[in-house]
């Protein structure tokens, strides 16, 4: 358990480095609206003019799925879409690979609009560019782990002689070595989702869509899977879109987080942006009980050195989260540390009182006193 948390923290620190550069194409969603119902297009104007979800349902029996979505999902990063059930997050992720067509709007990937693709183009796009992991695993019960893992490659028409080594490689990478000949029903939930992940990775697609991929798992297994995902992402740098209803999961995984409510985006930003500056009461109520020490980074609270103040001996990286910095400082019995960014550029200093003050949630502090 201890071992697991430490590896996770390590991967956290590196994988979530916001300065890391990648060259994968991002996904851009523009002015997207989705209304469910037989005459959806007809009601777009009304919704754009401000008709609410309730009113649309009451007056016209149409369900407003998504409204006015504008979102950039950077290439090679994990974008988390967070929302409670019914917020439209699963609908949104299905627009990216065209499983759902928008009523109006664009989903751009590398200059192509996914919504304008023909059936053949869309199939090709799904085969080569995207892979998806599902909440309830969606494995084929009559196929072994190996056969499930190479499923995407089978669909592409790749011969078994080529697909099997790839599939075996990914089965090992997700920690299922020795289970290749098992059937899904013989595996636990966590192991089944590892197969789901291996199947998605075997496809070697740029985009990885994860629809509440870990929500059906036990908390411990979920942490484990998050660690695996971050570890893999560190080396693969895929464009990942991750759906969750769990804020802790969102903060742990997300380079960028979008909060969705009733089909509209409430706030988009890094975990730190959202925790430190919730855009409204709804978001604030979400982040109130978050462990800020795991979200806020050293660079954020580093202050300029006072004139004549000596440079602390200890050095910490600016992208480290406060919890990690605090642990290092206490281990080294240091009361202050020098915060440096990439390339060793000085960002300022950090001392223990500031550190503790930033970790303690202001709201909780008020109610406690």
């Amino acid at each position, binding site marked *: 358990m201890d071992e697991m948390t430490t590896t996770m923290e390590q991967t956290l620190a590196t994988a979530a480095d916001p300065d890391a550069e990648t060259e994968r194409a991002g996904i851009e969603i523009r002015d997207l609206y989705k209304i469910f119902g037989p005459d959806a297009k007809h009601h777009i104007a009304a919704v754009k003019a401000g008709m609410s979800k309730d009113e649309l349902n009451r007056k016209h029996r149409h369900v407003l799925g998504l409204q006015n979505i504008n979102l950039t999902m950077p290439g090679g990063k994990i974008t988390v879409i967070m929302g409670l059930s019914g917020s439209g997050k699963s609908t949104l992720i299905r627009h990216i690979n065209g499983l759902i067509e928008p009523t109006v709007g664009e989903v751009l990937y590398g200059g192509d609009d996914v919504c304008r693709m023909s059936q053949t183009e869309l199939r090709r796009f*799904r085969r080569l560019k995207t892979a998806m992991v599902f909440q309830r695993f969606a494995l084929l019960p009559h196929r072994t782990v190996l056969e499930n893992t190479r*499923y995407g490659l089978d669909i592409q028409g790749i011969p078994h002689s080529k697909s099997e080594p790839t599939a075996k490689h990914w089965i090992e990478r997700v920690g299922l070595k020795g289970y290749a000949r098992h059937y899904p029903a*013989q595996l636990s939930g966590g192991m089944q989702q590892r197969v789901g992940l291996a199947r998605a990775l075997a496809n070697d697609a740029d985009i990885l869509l994860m629809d509440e991929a870990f929500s059906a798992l036990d908390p411990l297994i979920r942490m484990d899977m998050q660690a695996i995902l971050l570890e893999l992402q560190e080396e693969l740098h895929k464009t990942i879109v991750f759906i969750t209803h769990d804020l802790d999961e969102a903060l742990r995984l997300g380079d960028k987080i979008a909060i969705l409510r009733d089909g509209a985006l409430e706030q988009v930003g890094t975990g730190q942006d959202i925790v430190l500056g919730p855009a409204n009461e709804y978001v604030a109520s979400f982040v109130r009980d978050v462990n800020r020490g795991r979200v806020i980074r050293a660079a954020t609270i580093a202050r300029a050195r006072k004139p004549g103040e000596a440079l602390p001996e200890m050095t910490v990286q600016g992208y480290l989260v406060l919890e990690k910095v605090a642990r290092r400082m206490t281990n080294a019995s240091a009361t202050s540390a020098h915060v440096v960014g990439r390339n060793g550029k000085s960002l300022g200093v950090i001392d223990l009182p500031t550190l503790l003050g930033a970790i303690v949630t202001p709201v909780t502090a008020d109610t406690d006193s």
Partner: protein
Amino acid sequence: MATTCWGLPEVICTFPAIDTTTMRETRRAIDTGFRGLVREWSDVIDATTAPLQTFLNVLERSFVGAPWVVVLAVLLLVVWAASRSWKTVLGAALAMIGIGWVGLWADTMVTLAMVTVCTVFAVALGLPVGILTARSDRVQSIVNPVLDVMQTLPSFVYLIPVVVIFGIGKVPGMIAVVIYAVPPMIRLTNLGIRLVDPEVTEAADAFGSSARQKLLNVQLPLALPTIMTGVNQTIMMSLAMVVVASMVGVGGLGRNVLQAINNQFFTIGFLNGFALVAIAIIFDRTSQAFGKRLQKHREAGHG
């Protein structure tokens, strides 16, 4: 008159039917018209049924003509291959030996040949129709009422048009049996495919499966338990109908039963009936065991 009708007018009392003469004329017109039509098309009908007739004859001859040891061995081998259960094989062997011992071997072979052909045709017809029905709600809305009629129509009733069009013999019998046996195959194929976990079919879509890949990799394999139930039902209904079809000239055990009914041959009737039951049980056990064996992978547990 008025006394029998509680003083009510005639129209309310006796049902105002079409008068007998008009009825007779109409009936005659329709019957002659229909017969004329059939006669006109008889060449085409004969041409289409001829290969079926030959096929049936050849198969029946090979069943009846082959030495009983060979037939029994092949039958037991098929039972073993499908069920992998010594118990079922032993039961089948005992049943067949019993049938042979009371002198019903040849008749049983005729029935067996007929049921085999009818089942193959019903499955070959029902599976694609079932798939089409599952794919489109519109097709389903057309097919379902037709199946409803086929299943509610008493089997004697559709022997009439079959006999009028195709005459008497094995082929009309086979057509009647297939019509009777195909609905469960269509219905259960449709149901099985529609009940496949939508998340799994969505996964197939998300990985870019074509409709054909989705059908072969996901829908049919996952619907297989239900489809196998359909096959089992089809076999059972073929067996039931083969007996009724003896009225239009199908031979075998069914004809013996029919004769036993007509002549009150108690013992012969029962022996033939039991032979039919024995065959039915063999078919049922074998096909069910086969269906279950296909589902081995569903068994949970680390192993």
